[in-house]
């Protein structure tokens, strides 16, 4: 049994502690918003926040999350609300297939939590570990900058 907090709720995971966190989230916990893209820490599709920092859940064993705080795309904002980044992505229509977006929004949310007013360069740098094949990069950057205007906590 591994205790961890997922999207603010204390949970007990029964999967083997060596199981990738991604599989625990998608499988045991039914949180399928976190995506599998490569399983090799190379695309960012599976990013979640671990104590506020974006990590690749595909290569993070459950045991590493023990006693820590995990936030997935489903928990970026409370309840049915959307995080400013999510709203801005919709406003800018910054998506095509949308498969890359969960991980991208997790990276962006982490950036804005750390630096509420990033410049374009900082946004690009924060997203550089995330791949997108459909080519919505510039729209995403615009959206994150727009969201930054709103996140003033």
């Amino acid at each position, binding site marked *: 049994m591994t205790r961890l907090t997922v999207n603010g709720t204390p949970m007990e995971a029964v999967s083997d502690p060596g199981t990738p966190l991604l*599989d625990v989230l998608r499988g045991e916990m039914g949180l*399928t*918003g976190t995506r599998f893209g490569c*399983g090799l820490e190379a695309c960012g599709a599976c990013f979640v926040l671990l104590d506020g920092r974006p990590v690749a859940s595909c290569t993070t064993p459950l045991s590493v999350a023990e006693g820590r705080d995990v936030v997935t795309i489903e928990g970026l904002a409370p309840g049915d609300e959307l995080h400013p980044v999510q709203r801005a992505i919709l406003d800018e*229509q910054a998506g095509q297939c949308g498969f890359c977006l969960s991980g991208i929004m997790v990276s962006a949310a982490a950036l804005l939590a750390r630096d509420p007013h990033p410049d374009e360069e900082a946004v690009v740098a924060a997203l550089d570990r995330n791949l997108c*094949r459909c080519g919505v990069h510039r729209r995403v950057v615009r959206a994150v900058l727009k969201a930054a205007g709103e996140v003033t906590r």
Partner: protein
Amino acid sequence: MSERLAERVSIGPDGVICVIAGKVELGQGVLTALAQIAADALGADLAQVRMVAARTDGGPDEGLTAGSLSIQRAGPPLREACARVRAACAAEAARRWGVSPGEVTVRRGEFRAGDLTATYADLAKAVDLPAEEAPADAGTEQNVYVGTSVPRLDLPDKVAGRPRFIHDLRLPGQLHGRVLRPPSPGARLARLSPPPQDLRVVRDGSFLGVLGESEAEADRALGRLRRLAEWDERDTLPDENDLDTFLRAGPHETIPVRVADGEPPEGQVIEATYSRPFLAHASIAPSCAAARWNADGTLEVWTHSQGVYLLRRALAEVLGLDHDRVAVRHVEGAGCYGHNGADDVALDAALLARASGGRPVHVRWSRADELTWAPFGSAMSADVSAVVDEAGSVRSWQYDVWSQGHISRPTYGGRPGLLAGAHLERPWTYGAPTDPPPQAGWGSARNADPIYDFPRAQVTGHRLTETPIRSSALRSLGAFMNVFAIESFMDELALAAGRDPLEYRLDHLSDPRAREVLRRAADAAGWGRPGLGIGFARYKGFGAYCAAVAEIEAEQDVRVRRLTLAVDVGQVINPDGVRNQIEGGAVQATSWTLKERVRFDRRAITSRDWESYPILRFSETPEVAVELVEHPDTPPVGSGEAAQGPVAAAIANAVAASIEVRVRDLPITRDAIIRAIG
């Protein structure tokens, strides 16, 4: 045709109108555009229109969703069916109210005559009639949604992280399956050590898979299975560093695209050779499918295929079933840029589910499988030569292109064409890929015939008929390479003549829409500044017009700073949708042009992950500006494949303009530039 209207358009008691267009969402926004067309033809509120995913059990066979043809082909019949539904409901309202149908109007889903009103839900019964009995004269519709930037209907789910992708599908009692692919294309299973009791192995010939209760368990089982298998391997692949020789060695089918009369005129001859490597789809998600065998011997399949009916036929053939025993349903996957592994993984799921005791099986490929086993876009090589007059204008043009075929979709060429088929005990080998016919825009020769007014031109394709590397449709097929070659060469001719590349093109071009697009892109980019490169094409010769101007930086590597495109797709259904497709196409083309190359040795594909098959990153992505040149009275054509060729050429031409190095072999890497200088 005895199709009933309700088969395409059905109205629920809650007023929700379900529309089955037979097209599938591939990440390109097509369902949103079709919903706009449907809502306007119905006079309905967009919010009450639901687009139903394509399926073989209860949906029309609209063929593939491919080739930038969806709006063009599926739009008119959809509009017609919806207009008939509207007219049938209006007629029913008129009958009930004792007025003439002409007096009934409909707006936002509400029928009205004077003070009398009714909704679609009230009139739903009127729709259940054979299509041909429905009123043909549906009156005129008003465009409320068509022509506006309606937001994507599927995006809110995806942004919220709600289950929507096929990867998220969870069928009751579902198992997870993994396939152990052979280590190389020519490999055969030599020996399989007896698996331990707890390993649920499925084997048929060299096809090997495992089942697990969860994804994690299936992954672990796959690792164990790998250690039990021994393979016989052999070298079957060409020399990746000499693809020109491979492509030109034959045997070929000759494709006469344009045959010139008589002998070429005398004059100065200029010639050059261009090439591109094999390219991978490299979708951000690996292919995925689910399947369930029922007790009555029927099979259900969930897939992100581009063509549910084609896949059904191919599956039925491999599995020895009648077509009507197989139901294939579309569920959205990640971005699809052509014939990827979607169909293949559906057969994997069906094969594994055959051995699962009736439980559904969900299968997801690995990243390595996705990058090594899905079909590639073929490598290509082209020779261009021109005879020019004293002013450097083209008097005669000759173009020859060598390539593997660009289509090996399921059932094309009379074979199922599914990957696992070739590994079965009784194998279904896949044949050499072919090419679409001229009326569908060719394949190897797509856009090989230039749009320019050359007095004489000879254009020939040479399609390899023995193909050691599996290839099929990748976004724009041969057009990416052919436009890159033609438009690079036009630049070379212009520079040789000391003429401005834009003016040089315009001097050879009478098509007014083509001229406008070129001018618009050039103006928007500030043409005339040093270092810019331009590229242009009309996709397939009858599709969208697109011109691109590139601004680059060449230090260590080439970086594209900015792309400015102008595009004319005729009538625009959704302006932001078109922009998004052009932007995405331009960024993907930048990635192909600068970075991508499928790697292999003589035995196996060696580009298996994002390190060995790198794609463009955020920090490398150019600004993209798009000018829409609108022609509301011309039929809409697709935008998804228009930008690829022009962008490649614009980048190469910008490199030539900036550092005076002409790179003719893609990708334009640092090494390629050094080679071009040497």
